[in-house]
């Protein structure tokens, strides 16, 4: 079972308490009515589908209930980093 560090509980806890919530750092456009269909499609559906470190949102659903961001390597399934929602995308990742 994966162990995930919750930045709010400050504890490393079993995966069963968490739910995946899609790619992180995708801001909803401030004024969707000005966007073209292609731009709106890209916002809704187009994701990076990374091979390697992937920035994603998780929710500690059966714990503190908070959304947070995580960096997970999609090849090894290892969590490289987790940080609170709203914090900037980290510049460098731990090895």
């Amino acid at each position, binding site marked *: *079972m994966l162990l995930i560090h919750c930045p709010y*509980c400050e*504890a490393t*806890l*079993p995966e*069963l308490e968490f739910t995946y919530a899609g790619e992180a750092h995708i801001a909803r456009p401030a004024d969707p009515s000005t966007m073209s269909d292609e731009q709106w499609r890209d916002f809704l559906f187009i994701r990076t589908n990374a091979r390697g470190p992937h920035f994603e949102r998780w929710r500690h659903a*059966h*714990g*503190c*209930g908070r959304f947070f961001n995580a960096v997970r390597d999609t090849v090894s399934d290892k969590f490289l980093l987790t940080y609170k929602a709203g914090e900037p995308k980290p510049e460098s990742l731990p090895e």
Partner: protein
Amino acid sequence: MTTPMTTASAVSLSLLPEFPRYSLRIDPADVSAASEVLGLELPTRPGQRAATGSRLALCLGPDEWVLYTDEADAQAVEAAFAALYPVTPHSLIAISDRERTITLSGPQAAELLSTSCPRDLTAIAPGTGTRTVFDTVQIVLLRDSESDFRIEVGRSFLPHVWALLERANRELAAGL
């Protein structure tokens, strides 16, 4: 119809009578106001708890607490927060009917819990608590001492959780 191998049990399980519970959500910046009306210092780290008299507060998340008290005190808690409401926005929800409480007591209580709870139970210190899962069912787990636990479980999940605990308890008693 299966016959139990033994009627002996390793851990004593009991279902507590119903008592008042509240879910409190408040901005972490306003916690001191809630602490004041409640008469106890609300803990701010998830997992920690504080008690005074019949009142027990457990911090579940950065802005979420669960409060336990007894029937005689329930009105006072509600009145205290009702007075706070015009000044400090918050949400106090009575969830007394939502959950039931199972107590587990005995040296093997942690072992019994570990049959369906994925948490590292040694990391849950006596006098703390947490929200977690028990065989996919969300529970609030409180550890009162090394060998005493309480499980708060949604009432519709109670038969499922109780059946699992009882079966595992029989296995523990049989030395399996």
